[in-house]
């Protein structure tokens, strides 16, 4: 027996869902919500209904990092940032390192440096660690047993991603970019193609 939309049971389930997700500082997984709902209420159905209702409100329900969380509407950001302290941006090097970890995880630091063609300074790793965007998971069975770096659920939250599959595919990263027009190379005497 399922509680159907617009029945008192379903409305009660919606109230529970809203309160639970609102109170939580991390995205709430459907399984966690299910534990809080009365018997016969389907968490995914409740979440879908709640998402529909919150659309257009100042605080919206979004799916993120494998769960659901309330987030302020984008257009309100300028007003809010006037009084809320906004963390400073990550430097370019840190963003690149983060991107490499995101796409190549699990990846060792020497491998990151190989891809960047330059050393990764400790402050860069520190900055990413401090924001809990990356972490290590085990070590690579290679000389020196270097640590393997991966992104965290917090990374998904930071960039509003449902999962790592939300990252653009690698092929899309270059070909869709207008800044790098695909002009055929000029004929060169020793052109290598």
């Amino acid at each position, binding site marked *: 027996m399922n509680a159907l939309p617009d029945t008192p049971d379903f409305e009660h389930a919606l109230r529970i869902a809203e309160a*639970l997700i*609102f*109170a*939580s*500082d*991390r995205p709430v997984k459907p399984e966690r919500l299910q534990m809080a709902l009365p018997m016969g209420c389907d968490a995914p159905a409740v979440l879908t209904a709640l998402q529909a209702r919150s659309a257009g409100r100042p605080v919206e329900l979004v799916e993120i990092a494998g769960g659901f*969380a*309330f*987030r*302020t*509407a*984008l257009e309100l*950001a300028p007003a*809010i*940032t006037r009084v*809320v302290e*906004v*963390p400073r*941006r990550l430097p*370019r*090097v840190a*963003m*690149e390192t*983060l*991107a*490499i970890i*995101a*796409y190549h995880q699990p990846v060792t630091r020497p491998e990151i440096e*190989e*891809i*960047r*063609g*330059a*050393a990764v300074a400790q402050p860069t790793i520190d900055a990413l660690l401090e924001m809990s965007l990356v972490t290590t998971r085990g070590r690579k069975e290679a000389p020196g047993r270097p640590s393997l770096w991966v992104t965290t659920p917090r990374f998904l*939250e*930071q*960039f*509003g*991603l449902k999962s790592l599959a939300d*990252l*653009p595919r*690698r092929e899309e*990263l*270059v070909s869709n*970019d207008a800044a*790098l*027009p*695909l*002009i*055929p*190379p*000029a004929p*060169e*005497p*020793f*052109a*290598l*193609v």
Partner: protein
Amino acid sequence: MKLDLDGFEGPLDLLLDLARSQKVDIRRISIVALVDQYVLVLEAQDIRLELAADWLVMAAWLTWLKSRLLLPEESEPEEDAETLAGRLTDRLAELDRMRHAAFWLGGQVQLGRESFGRGAPEILRLEDRSGIVADLPALLRAYATARRRATAAAPYTPKPRRLYSVADALARLRLLLGRAPGWTVLQGFLPEGLASPLERRAALASGLVAALEEARGGGLDIRQDVAFGPLLIRLSREVRHERAA
């Protein structure tokens, strides 16, 4: 050619930028043109010291690559220059992709910048603290800690030991000596009932010192006929005469 070197982290960065300034698809880039431009940059710019080593390796590698490409082909078992150039192109392409990924990430709606989460989350847990964490290692550690502390805190008290002193020996010697008529073995003057060997040794040593002291004052005579033989003592003649008088 004008380059702002401050933004660069390493040779690959520079190569990538050179590649871009050629306005070409990196995957189809002319390595030779790249090498030429790179060498130009190396000659024209002040290179930051910490990058110099990296750059030198890259420069050497590129120079070698260029020489391989310029020289007529030889049959050699090594990787050919085209493969190496291809690998460089792949690396540049991957760096370029990661640059774009970073750019894409930077353009995403970011938590705490364009959208905000709950600032003051509520506590959604009630803690049931009826159970205890206690494992054997913790128990053993606790025992060792307690004992070490107790041992360290206790002041050092040597075992109380009643040893026969020289003064005791002197008193006993003076008391008993008069009763013995002639030469008597020193041990005969020691108290009886000394249980431990240590106490017996101490008593013997005290007895000897007391006898020597008494002999020095002229109170008694000592003799030992052979080395390690029994020590014999008796009242000195003067004392015997005094007593007799």
